[in-house]
């Protein structure tokens, strides 16, 4: 709450400045209202200010309102209990004190209503200010509850207010990333986080029912921003920072229990994920899934549906889903039929070019590290990777060739792929079927890794060096893939640029720009200027 307070102090001074220009000074009026009940009707002026066109006025009015109602809440001048209609209040028999408090309670409700509307204001300053004010009011309301606690079982927390705030934050029309990131600091408070999670779940449920499962990118983006910024505590003892202190019943309060938090977190995510998502949203979620979502769920296996669906999507999304699946298989005993077959089919030329290459190969290395895998499977993987290596850039090749070698090292019966002395003299066609989806039927074991032989004449000397290793029996210890995963093209280049030995020169003297190199550039296609082109045509 510290930053909010500070902000408040500053805005007070600004509001004081603004007051000089404005005809009516909201903060002065507020002071009067607080001082004496006679000036109670001035509250209407202040509320009018809230609707003003000018940004500065609005901001000062927001701050003034906030101060006013916080003060009133502290004095318990607002009506506590079930509120009656204003008309009913006028007609009914009430003493002056009650009437005043009811009146003020109604004004309070109006103010909150307006502030919530301001959360979708066009100016960010107003939005931020309204958010801060609302949260302060929420804190105050939590401290001095407006409901009768005597008869209600539940604990005091301004749930409706939070629900309102969350509802406005998750706008369907506007990207609220900035505001949500401002809101994130309130999420550090345990109880706010808990109620926000449940509010998000309610909100998502209702919105998605209305949209009938259609994709609403902006809304879903907002939800994701809010939801992904929730940082879950890892231990019960970390639950200390509360916005509202409960005097009694604290130990029974759900918001104070880690398990409840986890359950709520889980329900929120499941509620969000069960709907159809845009594909880039899939990627974003899958990227953070394994380290910030799965560990905080009370029952991670519930994610299986989502992950299986993602795995079946294909392309980069499948690659990413692999990570979550791995955790489920590894830690939660998930049995996934045809896992390796699907993994095999994930191997496409694009795996060497996508951003998630390192992650994918790291996992693939893990999956294939078992020595209990059948030989045909490993051979199929090795052969397929080798085939794909024909289209890979050098930085990937430097990684995938040792990967293949490691496969062969782990499974000595795969050695026939690089060493088949029995039929050495009989030449044969490559029996491997690239298009076959089932690794059993791909005939990989009957083939040889001619691709690596081809790569021995790769243009990059490092690749050539690595590829040359198949000419001799492989060394026994496995190579460490992890260091090779992150090599980039630029690093390779730097490596070569650094070498400053003597530079051999071309001995054929250059006379023209387009000479040499077999004359491909000169004779076949290119000329200098438009003129010659025009001549030709």
């Amino acid at each position: 709450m510290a930053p909010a307070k500070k902000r408040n102090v500053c805005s007070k001074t600004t509001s004081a400045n603004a007051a000089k220009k404005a005809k009516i000074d909201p903060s002065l009026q507020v002071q009067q209202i607080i001082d004496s009940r006679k000036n109670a009707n001035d509250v209407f002026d202040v509320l009018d200010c809230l609707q003003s066109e000018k940004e500065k006025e609005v901001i000062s009015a927001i701050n003034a309102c906030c101060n006013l109602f916080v003060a009133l809440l502290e004095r318990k001048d607002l009506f506590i209990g079930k509120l009656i209609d204003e008309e009913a209040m006028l007609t009914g028999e009430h003493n002056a004190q009650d009437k005043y408090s009811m009146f003020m309670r109604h004004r309070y409700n109006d103010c909150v209503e307006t502030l919530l509307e301001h959360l979708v204001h066009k100016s960010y300053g107003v939005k931020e200010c309204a958010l801060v004010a609302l949260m302060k009011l929420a804190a105050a309301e939590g401290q001095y509850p407006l409901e009768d606690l005597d008869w209600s079982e539940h604990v005091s927390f301004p749930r409706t207010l939070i629900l309102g705030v969350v509802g406005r934050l998750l706008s369907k029309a506007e990207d609220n990333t900035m505001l949500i990131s401002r809101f994130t600091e309130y999420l550090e408070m345990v109880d706010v986080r808990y109620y926000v999670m449940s509010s998000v779940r309610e909100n998502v449920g209702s919105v998605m029912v209305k949209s009938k499962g259609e994709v609403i990118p902006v809304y879903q983006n907002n939800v994701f921003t809010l939801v992904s910024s929730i940082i879950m505590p890892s231990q019960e003892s970390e639950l200390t920072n509360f916005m509202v202190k409960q005097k009694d019943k604290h130990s029974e309060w759900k918001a104070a229990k880690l398990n409840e938090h986890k359950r709520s977190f889980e329900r929120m995510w499941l509620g969000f994920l069960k709907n159809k998502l845009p594909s880039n949203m899939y990627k974003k979620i899958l990227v953070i899934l394994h380290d910030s979502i799965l560990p905080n769920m009370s029952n991670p296996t519930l994610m299986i549906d989502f992950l299986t669906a993602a795995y079946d999507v294909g392309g980069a999304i499948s690659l990413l889903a692999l990570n979550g699946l791995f955790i489920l298989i590894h830690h939660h005993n998930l049995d996934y039929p045809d896992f390796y077959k699907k993994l095999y089919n994930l191997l496409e030329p694009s795996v060497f070019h996508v951003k998630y290459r390192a992650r994918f190969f790291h996992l693939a290395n893990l999956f294939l590290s078992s020595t209990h895998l059948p030989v045909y499977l490993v051979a199929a993987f090795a052969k397929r990777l080798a085939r794909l290596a024909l289209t890979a850039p050098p930085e990937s090749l430097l990684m995938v060739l040792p990967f293949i070698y490691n496969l062969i090292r782990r499974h000595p019966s795969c050695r026939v792929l690089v060493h088949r002395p029995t039929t050495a003299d009989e030449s044969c066609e490559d029996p491997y079927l690239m298009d076959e989806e089932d690794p059993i039927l791909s005939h990989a074991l009957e083939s040889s890794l001619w691709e690596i032989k081809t790569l021995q004449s790769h243009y990059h000397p490092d690749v050539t060096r690595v590829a040359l290793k198949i000419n001799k029996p492989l060394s026994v210890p496995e190579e460490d893939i992890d260091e090779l995963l992150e090599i980039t093209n630029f690093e390779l280049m730097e490596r070569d640029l650094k070498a400053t030995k003597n530079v051999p020169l071309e001995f054929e003297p250059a006379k023209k720009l387009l000479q040499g190199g077999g004359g491909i550039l000169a004779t076949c296609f290119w000329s200098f200027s438009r003129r010659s082109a025009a001549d030709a045509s």
Partner: protein
Amino acid sequence: MVKPQKKRSLVDKVRKSKTSAEIKNNPFEVKINRKKFEVLGRKSKHDVGLPGVSRSKAINKRKDTLLKEHQNKHKSNKFIDRRFGEYDTNMDPEDKILERFSMERQKQHDKKDMFNLNEEEELTHYGQSLAEMEKFNDLMDSDSEPDEKGLLSAELTRSHFGGGGGLLRKKAGDDKGGAPRAKSRQELIEELIQKSKLQKRERQVQKEETFELTEKLDKDWKSIQTLLANKPSKAERDELQPEKPKVQLDEYDMMVRELGFEMKAAPSEKLKTPEELAREERERLQRLEADRLRRMLGDAVESAPKAPAHLSADDLNDGFILDKDDKKPLSYKDGKWLSGEGEDKGDEGDDEGEDEEGGEEEEEEEEEDEEEDDGEGVAVGDDDEDGDEEEDEEADSHSDLDSEQESGEEAEIMEEEEEEEEAAPGVILTEEELKAQQEAAKSELPYTFTAPENQGEFVALLKGHSPDHQCVILARTQKCNHPSLAVGNKLKLQKLFGFLLEYMGDLACSSPPELGTIDKLIPQLYDMGQMFPDAASKALRSALADASHGMEEDLEGSGRSPFPSLDMLVYLKVVALLFPTSDYRHPVTTPALLFICQSLSKCPVTSLQDVTSGLVLCCLALEYVSLSKRLLPELLNFLCGILHLAVPDKTSTGYSVVPPFKHAGKHSDLLLLSEPQSSATWTNHTLPLALTQHLELTDNLHRDHHRMTCLSTCLDLVKHCCVLYKDSASFTALFQPIHTLLSKHLPLQTHPEVLQELKTEILAAVDGAPRSHNPLVFEKQKPIPLRMFTPKIVEVLDYGKRRGNTKEQKESERTKHKYKKEFKGALREIRKDNRFMAREKLQETMSRDSERKRKVKELYGSLGTQEGEWKALRRRKK
């Protein structure tokens, strides 16, 4: 037990009384350790032992130390003899006595005699008592002969060297005479001093006189000497020395050197016939090609780093000759102009050239005149300073072709240029037109240029000139700043390379790109590259690094990056021109190839212009590997992707495109013809390089034409690739996507026949490739040689020492051994000590017992006698 002890002590006594030689010769003392066999070269210390001697020695020692300790065990006080050397066993007793005596004396002297004037001590001279010397006072020591020959009186000698003897004797004499002391000691000494001073003075005067006499004699001699003979005296010669050699040496040395350096009618080298020249050239190329192949295979790159041949000074000269066809006639003036003046004058000339373009001819003549004057001036100056060098130069000028690189002399360069000028016309005569052109160029360009210091100056230098003139300017700038002319020139020219490169980039970037100019400038760039390989590689590498880094940043920022612009394409081509692209690993070409591949695999194709740029890159890539036939996966991917752009049905399967291409998407129809009939009007022509920079195609027809040109280029490249990789083991796998795409999905029905022909050719090439290969096997390893039975002979130089270990191991072993020995020795000693102590203790108790027994016996005895006496007394009483 007492007995043996006694015996031993007796033995000891005997031993002590005998000399060591006696003991050693005594056969009863000696114990011989018999050896079973002799080992050659081993020294044995322990073949003879004297057990008795050593035992008694040990016992004595124990008695001195251990026993004493034991005896003083529980005693609180102790007697310590503080006399000097009392406990020092090493000292002789005589020495001890002497030391003690001298210490005693010293002590006495220090304390008592401090203020004692009447010395009691005996006065000595050279360790002899003066009193004793008195006895033979006239004896002269031959060693103490005085310095002054023949000047010594007996008295002086006595007074000086007799010490106090003389005085004493005198005194004694006086004493004898009984007269009282006449002079005090002080007076005597003063007298002595006076005497000696007087004598000294006398000697000095005599010396001076002698010297004067000699001088006079010399003069006299000189005056008659000339009469005696014409031969110059030694003194005269000495006097004349400083002047003479200048004249004489000069003439003589000149003569000698002239003889030495005189042109001997050496046979000049035979003029080579054209066939010979051609053969030499062929041999040179073959050698270079072999070298290139070696680098391509990459096996010996590290093992034999060789300096580039062009770096030799001869090749610097080649640099001149290379552009002889158009620059020779000019070089004459350049050289001449420059040789006289240097840079400042060069600037002047520059200005003049600009000012008076009309009267250029006259100007030239003037310049020449000036030039000659200057040259003479220089020569004269040289004459004045140093005649020798002048000679050298003359000698050089006869054979300057061989030795020009050795001399930094400007005049020499000038001559060199002259020579070249003489040779040049013969070469050029054939090209009359070119010469005419040069004449024209000559008429308007200045002859010297200062090397530009920055890019701005460089651009200003070349701006506004035609490409040919720019070449000439560059050539002249190079020549004016040839590294052999001044120290800083090398650096200037190295910078010039960078400027030229940048200038080319600018030209390529300008619109329209001035590729013609670039083309003209290439030979200049090549020459400079040959001259300064390091500077060239540095400049190009930094260009590559910048471009690559820029692309990386773009990719990280926005995820997409534009294709490299035309200047980068030109740079890449320049790299291929200046450096061998076929090397296994090359500091410039390898990164360049990496950059090309990076561009081909990372830059998304979004427009026809991108297609064009990409195709240029493909061409470049193909050129790079045309000799080495290396595999370029990115190239095939890109070509496949380009073909995919022309496929009408994007849902087709059977092949997959690799990023940056997408199977279907916004820009995946770039090469689809918009109007099929446009193919009728299309003719195949070469694409202008400039299109990579600006591609404005207004109407559909032109666009379609461009598409078809691109497609034909692409197909042509695929064909080239087929040829290039046809020997590859996985040829079919490499070309499978392209094959599928061409055969199934790219009909080309509406396209011109040329394209269809290309397509069928490619398909035939792919189908015709051999599909079967031998399975892979490891390389046959060299069989491990069988174990041989001939003994392994190792030369052993140090017998008896442990071998086969490292120094540390040996050291630790030695230490361990030593420790063990010491430990055992210590144990043994302790045991012996214990035994000794036990013996001593036993002896002690026994002696105590016997003493007691004796006393008891005595008592008994006395008692007995008492008793006896008493009994006797009683008996007597009875």
